[in-house]
C-alpha cells in the first residue's frame, strides 16, 4: 500500500513551504539533512509554530529560512543574529531561531555571534559548517581547515581555522553542541533540548559540500563525506571546547559540550530595572474607532 492510500505523509512537510521545493541545494548537500532533524525536533515541542520565527543570513544555509513554513526572514550577509535579536527583544513570546552558515555567522557576522552569546540573547543559532563559501563558488572561509584548497587558496590556506564551539563557549553561550549531518538522530535530540532551553544556544552541524569542499580537496562525494564523519566522529559530551578543534583527518569531537544556566538579556534587564520598568503594550493600531461608537 502506498503512502497516499494510507493517508500518510512526511511530517517534515508540514514545516516546509511546499511551493518552494525542490531546494536550490546540490545533490548530497547536508543542509537539507539537517533540516529533517530540525523539523522533527520542532514538531516534538509543545510550542506554537505560529509564534516561531526563523532568520537566516546569506549563503546556501541562508536559504533554510525561506523553505520553512514559519515566519521567515532572509536578511543580509552576516546579520541574521542582530535581526533575530531585534525580533526577540520586541516580541519576547516568539521562539527565534537563526539558521545560517559558517561564513555568514562566523566570518562576516562573527562579531554579532560573539556579542549575542555575551548578551545571552534568548535565541537558538544553528550553524551549518561546510568549511567553505559555497554559494559564491568555493572560496576559503574562517572555518576552512589549514592548508585545505579552495578557489581563493589555490596553494592551501595560510591561516588556521576558527573553532566555533570554543568561540561561543568563551563568549558565554549557555548551550553549545556539535554534530555532523551523519548524526541525524543525535542532532534531533540535541535540537529538541536546545529548543527548550532559555538563553543563547549554539548548535554547529558539520555538513558535506560535495560541489566545492569535497571536490576541490579530492575528498570524494557527499556520501564519502558522510562515511568519513561516521568514521572520524567521537561522541564526547561535556568535552571542554578547547579540546574540540577540527583537524584535517583527525577525530571529530561531537556532542553537547556546554549546558550552563545564565540569565538571558531580558530577564536580567527586567530584574535590574525592577519597579523602574513600566510595562505597557505598544499602541500601534487604533484601539477604538474615532467618532461614533457602534451603538449610535
Amino acid at each position, binding site marked *: 500500500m502506498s503512502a497516499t492510500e494510507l493517508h500518510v505523509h512526511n511530517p517534515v512537510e508540514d514545516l516546509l*513551504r511546499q*511551493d*518552494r521545493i525542490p531546494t536550490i541545494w546540490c545533490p548530497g548537500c547536508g543542509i537539507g539533512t539537517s533540516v529533517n532533524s530540525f523539523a522533527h525536533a520542532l514538531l516534538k515541542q509543545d510550542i506554537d509554530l*505560529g*509564534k516561531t*520565527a526563523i*532568520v537566516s543570513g546569506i549563503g546556501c544555509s541562508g536559504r533554510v529560512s*525561506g523553505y520553512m*513554513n*514559519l*515566519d*521567515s*526572514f*532572509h*536578511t*543580509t550577509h552576516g*546579520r541574521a543574529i*542582530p*535581526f*533575530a*535579536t*531585534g*525580533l*526577540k*527583544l*520586541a*516580541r519576547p*513570546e*516568539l521562539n527565534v531561531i537563526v539558521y545560517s552558515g559558517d561564513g555568514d555567522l562566523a566570518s562576516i557576522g562573527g*562579531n*554579532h555571534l*560573539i*556579542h549575542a552569546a555575551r548578551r545571552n540573547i534568548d535565541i537558538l543559532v544553528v550553524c551549518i559548517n561546510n568549511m567553505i563559501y559555497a554559494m559564491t563558488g568555493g572560496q576559503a572561509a574562517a572555518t576552512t581547515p589549514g592548508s585545505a584548497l579552495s578557489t581563493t587558496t589555490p596553494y592551501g590556506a595560510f591561516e588556521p581555522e576558527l573553532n566555533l564551539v570554543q568561540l561561543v563557549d568563551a563568549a558565554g553561550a549557555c548551550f553549545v553542541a556539535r554534530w555532523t549531518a551523519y548524526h541525524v538522530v543525535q542532532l534531533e535530540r540535541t535540537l529538541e533540548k536546545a529548543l527548550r532551553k532559555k538563553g543563547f544556544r549554539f548548535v554547529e552541524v558539520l555538513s558535506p559540500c560535495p560541489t566545492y569542499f569535497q571536490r576541490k580537496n579530492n575528498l570524494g562525494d557527499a556520501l564519502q563525506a558522510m562515511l568519513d564523519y561516521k568514521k572520524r566522529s567521537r561522541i564526547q559530551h561535556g568535552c571542554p571546547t578547547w579540546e574540540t578543534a577540527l583537524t584535517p583527518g583527525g577525530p571529530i569531537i561531537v556532542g553537547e559540550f556546554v549546558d550552563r544556566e545564565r540569565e538571558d538579556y531580558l530577564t536580567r*534587564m527586567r530584574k535590574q*530595572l525592577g519597579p*523602574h*520598568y*513600566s*510595562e*505597557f*503594550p*505598544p*499602541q*500601534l*493600531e*487604533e484601539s477604538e474607532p474615532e467618532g461614533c461608537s457602534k451603538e449610535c
Partner: protein
Amino acid sequence: MHADPRTVLTGTHFINGDAACCEGALAAGARYAAGYPITPSTEIVERFAARAPEVGGLFIQMEDEIASSIVIQGMVWGGQKAFTVTSGPGFSLMMEHIGLAAMTETPVVFVDVQRGGPSTGLPTLPSQGDMMQARFGSHGDYAVIALSPNSPQECFDLTIKAFNLAEEFRVPVMFMMDECMGHMTEKVVIPPADQIEVRPRRHTTRPPGQFRPYEPGPDLVPEMAHAGEGHKIYVTGLTHDRRGYPSLNAAAQRELVTRLLEKIRRAAERLVMVETDQIEGAEVVVVSYGITSRVALRAVQEARARGIKVGTLRLICVWPFPEKLIRELARKVKALVMPELNMGQVVIELERCAAGQCKVIGVPHPGGTVHDPAEILEAIERGAQ
C-alpha cells in the same frame, strides 16, 4: 491616532536638538532603539536609554552600527516602532541596511547627526556632507524620504513626522540633523498628546492564509503583518514577488523596483515641505536647509537692505526633492543661490530642476563651522546682476 500620553513630555522645555529628537521619537510611539556611540549623535540614545524603561521600551547598545541598523528592523517586524541614531562614519556602515529596509519595506527611522567628513573627519563639528549619501548611499535603485530640521523645536516636530512618513510609505526615513542642530539649545514646546498625530502601522486585517505580504495597495504600499501573528510571512532582501518569495528574474525586478520608486514619486507633491518667504517677485531666491538656512537669513536681510529682492526657500523635506516647485520658481527668478555645508551636493539637484532657466549659484563649504554670511551675500549680489 493620537500620541500615547504616557510617552509625551508635555510642557515647555529648554533642551538641545538631540534631546528634542529623542522626545519626538517617544511621542511618535517609538519605544525601541539601538545605537552605537558616535559624536555628535550619542546624546539622543543616552536620553533614550534613560527614558525607555519608563515607557516599557528598550535601548540596546549594539556592537557596531551595522548591527544597530538591522536590530531595529527586527524590532519593527516584531511589532514595534524603532529607530537608530548615528553620524557620518556610522551612517556609512548602515548603508546596506538602508537598502534592506527599502527592499523589505520596513518602516524605520535613521537619524544622522552630520559631522565633517570624509572618514573620521571632524567628529565634533558640523557639516551637511551626507545629503547625497542619504538619498543614494545604498546600492541599487530605491527611494527614501529625508527631512532636515533647523531648530530644536523642529527636531521634535519633524522626528514625529519622520516616523509617520515611515509608517505611511513603509520606507526608511532619514532624519538629517547636523552637529549644530544636535547641540543647539532652545525653547522646545511639547504639546499635549492629544494634539500630536501619530500614524499607526498599516497592519493587515486579513486573516492568515489570505494575506500576501507584498501585495501593493492603491497607493502602491503593501499592508504589513508581524512575526508571530500566524501569517507565516516571508521577508527577503532578494528580489521578491507579491508573496514575498524570491523571484530572481528581470520581470520581477522591474515590477518591484519600479513600485519602490513609484510609491514615493506618486506622492511627491504631498511630500513637498518647504518654508518660503517673499519669493513672489523675488529676483533671487536663497534655497537652503538645516542650520545653513539660519545662517543665510543674515545674508538675506543684508541683501534686502541693499535693495535686492531676495526670497528664501527652506527645504524641510529634502528627499524627494520639490522638483516641480523649483522648476516653476526657476522660470521667475534671475538666480537661485544654494549655500550648504558641503562642497556641492543638493545644489546638483537644484541645477537639474532649474534646467538652465535661471542662474544656479552654489555656495559650497567644507564644514567645520557654518558659512560666513558674507559669502552668501556675495552670491546673492552676483545672482541679482
